[in-house]
């Protein structure tokens, strides 16, 4: 019990963020029309690519002799970039088609 309280005290800021983000995430998704579910899933997929920041940090602080960190870190940055770049480009491609619809209609 004490360790739990200690943990909460040390990370109270983070815990606040977690709790607020859970509610915010649910709130935002709740209003999405079902037509946009696939692009939304894809967009969310791109956003969790933010994990690449961690990969960059791992890579950047690896010492030159530490091959485990260097190789795994390199791989992590490549995969993370794939997630981010691929995710956003695919989402855009999906949404492009919706866009072309609406702009044609306006003509």
């Amino acid at each position, binding site marked *: 019990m004490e360790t739990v309280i200690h943990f909460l005290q040390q990370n109270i800021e983070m815990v606040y963020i977690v709790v607020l983000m*859970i509610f915010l*995430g649910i709130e935002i998704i709740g209003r999405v029309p079902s037509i946009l579910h696939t692009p939304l899933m894809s967009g*969310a997929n791109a*956003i969790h690519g933010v994990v690449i920041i961690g990969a960059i*940090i791992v890579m950047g602080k690896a010492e030159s002799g530490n091959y485990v960190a260097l190789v795994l870190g390199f791989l992590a940055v490549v995969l993370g970039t*794939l997630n981010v770049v*691929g995710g*956003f480009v695919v989402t855009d491609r999906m*949404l492009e088609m919706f866009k072309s619809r609406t702009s044609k209609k306006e003509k």
Partner: protein
Amino acid sequence: MGINILSVCYLVASVTFIIGLKMLSNPSTARKGNWIAASGMIIAIAGTIFLYNNDGKKLGNYEWIFSAIIIGSVIGVLIAKKVKMTSMPELVSFFNGMGGACAALISIVEFDYLYREHRTIASTFFSDVVSPGHYLAIIAGTIIGSVSFIGSMIAWGKLSGKIKDYSFKGQHLFNIIILFLVLATAVFTYFSNTHSVNIPFFVTVALALLYGLFFVLPIGGADMPVVISLLNSFTGVAAACGGFLYDNKAMLTGGILVGAAGTLLTILMCRAMNRSLINVLIGSFGANTNNLSGAKSEHENIKEISVSDAAMLMAYAKKVMIVPGYGLAVAQAQHTCHELEKVLEEKGVEVKYAIHPVAGRMPGHMNVLLAEADVSYEKLLEMDDANEEFKSTDVVLILGANDVVNPAAKDDPSSTIYGMPILEVELAKTVIVNKRSMKPGYAGIENELFYRAKTSMLFGDAKKILQELLAELKNI
């Protein structure tokens, strides 16, 4: 001062993620929202590369970082640009797997640091040198990331037809045991001796990978969207674990946001398919849906209709409603379908599309496909509106959809899909069903609709049939 600017970068990134997701929820702002989130991501990445500073130590290995980013970007853009619209769902799964692997690798490297730092200290336990919060972030990131990676890869393979469903007796129990073992070894690792702590850790990783494998393998293709959405939120949580590890607010907000949103999306999908999330988590439902309610097949006569008769029916109807399903996606028939719509409209027939929320392989899959073929946005009706309009519809043309129009969901309490909301096509005057064969759909159950008096069957590949219909219509 550098660290403060970086915090602002992360704050900006977090805000753009929230705004981006919010704008993605509206068709008119969605595209802009995507780019806003992307620009936030660029700010966060650039900020990390140039401003990150841990106790006065800046990042090194720039040549490695940049070459990795360039490699990843080139491959990512190439794949994303080249892939066909019909294979979008598996692509999302693929990229999700990459994110999961990334999260797992980060945690593994962080563990390796701790291990190297402490392994020389004699007879201490890992729990003495590492705080529980820190360990929890590492191990959770590793496990969740690994499960998400393998699971997404399997889902990707299944959707692209490379991997078949596989299950064995007692898999249910087997999965629970593996999951339990994963947790047990994770706890065991924490209380291991520092100089040998790497062994139980890598056993945990291996078990987590095994769990991911057997978690997704038995689940049938129709349930893949639920699984992908769930794994998507898993990766979000894994990213958030990284946020804890580095005290990084951008990773934390982005990860948790996706984790929460993804979980809700998963629940919404489950609800539309009348399945509980618990069933999905244990990974069992694909296996037991095969033989239920099959006993009801009395095989009354089915009525076939010729292409020319079908064309005639539609040409002289006032209102035609098209119900697209996975068959349309497989046959890549969305463009032909749009042509049919145009030809009918020239003849003064009102044409609309009825879209079931889980038609195809992902929620909104049909909308994306039809949008690619330039079908007007207003013609796509959501389920409730469509059910209203069926009453005044003359002909319903079902293209490769099955379970979403199965009346058993309404009338047969013994059916596995009982309670799932369906498109009530029977409210219309006539129903034409295009299918390749009489095989049941992904839920694996008979569809009584095909035997009803109002229904006529039009067997064949959706694209071929649509082309023949088009040719006939032009002659009328």
